């Protein structure tokens, strides 16, 4: 391949990235802003377990409002906007055509953010829909999310149609399907026509599918792109990747009812959900084996590529959280873990160790290609990685143990309820300390992103290929 041909290939990539640059960057920047907001809410909520009287004179700072504010800022702010930004960059690359209707995508990102600001404002003011993962106001906030997501989705699906690719890479399946699934489950979850038990069932239909058909699916699409792309080798088994996607599409929707084990629902419904949850071992194993086998013999690449380091860690966490979820669906385990901190640990393995890590890795790869500037400091990337890795590992271990001892204490009829609270205290303190470590990692990441994007920063000078040389992360440290 001649130097001119390489330059042409690079120029073609720049042309593909061009129209989607602004909407993708808007989503990334606001996502990181929400990450910081959500982190503050999360830290404060965690601190309330050590100092329960903190801020009680101001209702907006009470646990019942701060905790859902943390959850919604992280799910609809950080995770969703980071995933939308990644999708806006990834889809044009995957179908080899520039983003269509970029103004709509831009508008969609703005509208989504407006809805979230309104929703969180109302939430802190005490106006909540009162349903898990659906706390944002269904009249003044949710319509913005539906319209915003619809505008971005229209842009992405239009790009897909314009590309008319003969071969639909598995990442396209995951991402395109997510933008169809999400509005369906979100609108359904917000309908007001359900009553009583049926409403609880629809609530968990939404909440569990938001994880599987939104957060998981786009993150898996990103993993299926970045691992082969950076390693320069195709995915180990494409058939396995298709098996993973279609098994998720066919059966995942059945899973949500396992959150209601022991609840007043027909037992056949719970049992069906448990069986479907166990069946999920098939797509999970397909994805895990595929990712692992693609990496085999190339694990040293993790020293050179921060993107790969975050993404591979996220892929491992996907396997872990899925297997943990399958076991938690079993009634004997659910009997102990239900209503305990175990569930919080489990959801953080999913939304943080899996989704957030994949999004960090994606942003390390995509932002320089959109901004035309490289990340200025390998050292800051290394600090970010180790802080969030240690932070989330300590967080999950502490809350998992805390959840089990809490569950066992709750089941012991000889012990008063207070005993189940007391046994969790040391673990909740460790959780608060780990949250501080995570916060420092997030601040470093946000500061680093600001340095890449700030006006006047020196653009990267691309050396001719024969002079360019990769710089290892540990090289700068040395």
């Amino acid at each position: 391949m001649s130097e001119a041909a390489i330059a042409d290939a690079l120029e073609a990539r720049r042309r593909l990235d061009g129209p989607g640059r602004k909407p993708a960057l808007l989503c990334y920047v606001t996502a990181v802003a929400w990450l910081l907001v959500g982190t503050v809410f999360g830290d404060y909520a965690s601190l309330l377990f050590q100092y329960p009287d903190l801020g009680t004179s101001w209702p907006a700072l009470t646990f019942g409002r701060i905790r859902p504010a943390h959850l919604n800022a992280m799910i609809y702010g950080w995770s969703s906007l980071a995933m939308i930004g990644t999708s806006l960059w990834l889809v044009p690359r995957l179908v080899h055509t520039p983003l269509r209707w970029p103004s709509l995508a831009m508008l969609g990102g703005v509208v989504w953010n407006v809805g979230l600001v309104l929703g969180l404002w109302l939430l802190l003011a005490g106006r909540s829909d009162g349903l898990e993962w659906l706390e944002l106001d269904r009249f003044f906030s949710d319509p913005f999310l539906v319209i915003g997501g619809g505008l971005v989705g229209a842009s992405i699906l239009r790009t897909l149609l314009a590309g008319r690719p003969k071969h639909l890479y598995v990442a396209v399946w995951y991402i395109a399907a997510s933008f169809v699934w999400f509005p369906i489950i979100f609108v359904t979850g917000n309908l007001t026509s359900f009553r009583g038990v049926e409403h609880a069932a629809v609530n968990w239909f939404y909440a569990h599918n938001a994880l599987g058909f939104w957060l998981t699916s786009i993150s898996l699409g990103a993993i299926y792109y970045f691992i082969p792309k950076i390693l320069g080798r195709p995915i180990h088994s494409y058939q396995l990747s298709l098996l993973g996607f279609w098994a998720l599409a066919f059966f995942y929707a059945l899973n949500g009812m396992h959150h209601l084990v022991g609840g007043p629902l027909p037992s056949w419904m719970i049992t069906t959900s448990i069986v479907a949850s166990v069946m999920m071992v098939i797509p999970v194993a397909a994805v895990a084996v595929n990712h692992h086998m693609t990496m085999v013999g190339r694990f040293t690449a993790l020293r050179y590529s921060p993107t790969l380091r975050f993404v591979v860690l996220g892929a491992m966490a996907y396997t872990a959280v899925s297997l943990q979820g399958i076991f938690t669906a079993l009634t004997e385990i659910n009997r102990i873990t239900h209503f305990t901190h175990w569930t919080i640990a489990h959801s953080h393995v999913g939304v943080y160790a899996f989704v957030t890590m994949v999004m960090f890795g994606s942003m390390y790869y995509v932002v320089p290609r959109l901004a035309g500037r490289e990340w200025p400091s390998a050292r800051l990337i290394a600090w970010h990685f180790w802080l969030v890795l240690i932070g989330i590992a300590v967080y999950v271990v502490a809350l998992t143990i805390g959840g089990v001892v809490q569950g066992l204490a709750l089941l012991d009829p000889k012990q008063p309820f207070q005993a189940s609270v007391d046994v969790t205290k040391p673990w909740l303190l460790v959780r608060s300390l780990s949250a501080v470590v995570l916060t420092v990692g997030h601040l470093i990441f946000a500061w680093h992103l600001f340095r890449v994007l700030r006006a006047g920063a020196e653009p990267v000078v691309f050396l001719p290929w024969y002079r360019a040389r990769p710089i290892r992360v540990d090289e700068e440290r040395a």
Partner: protein
Amino acid sequence: MLSPSLTVVLLVAGMGFASVVAFGWALLRGSLDDPEAQARSILDQRDLRLGRPWETELQAQERTARYGSAVEPRPGEWGGTR
């Protein structure tokens, strides 16, 4: 038996059925044919020829033999480094 759960049953069945329809459409369209080509569709010639510093000598030789002489990566090629 179905009264407290009819909505969820219909929703789940609808989503599963829609996936089956999408699968049939993909099958008829030929989107699931030729998995080898699909797996390679994200890798262009430059990706395949980039010299990767983590590869063993044998892996690098295999890459060269299969795709041609190695192309030097640009700064930040692997995401995140200078």
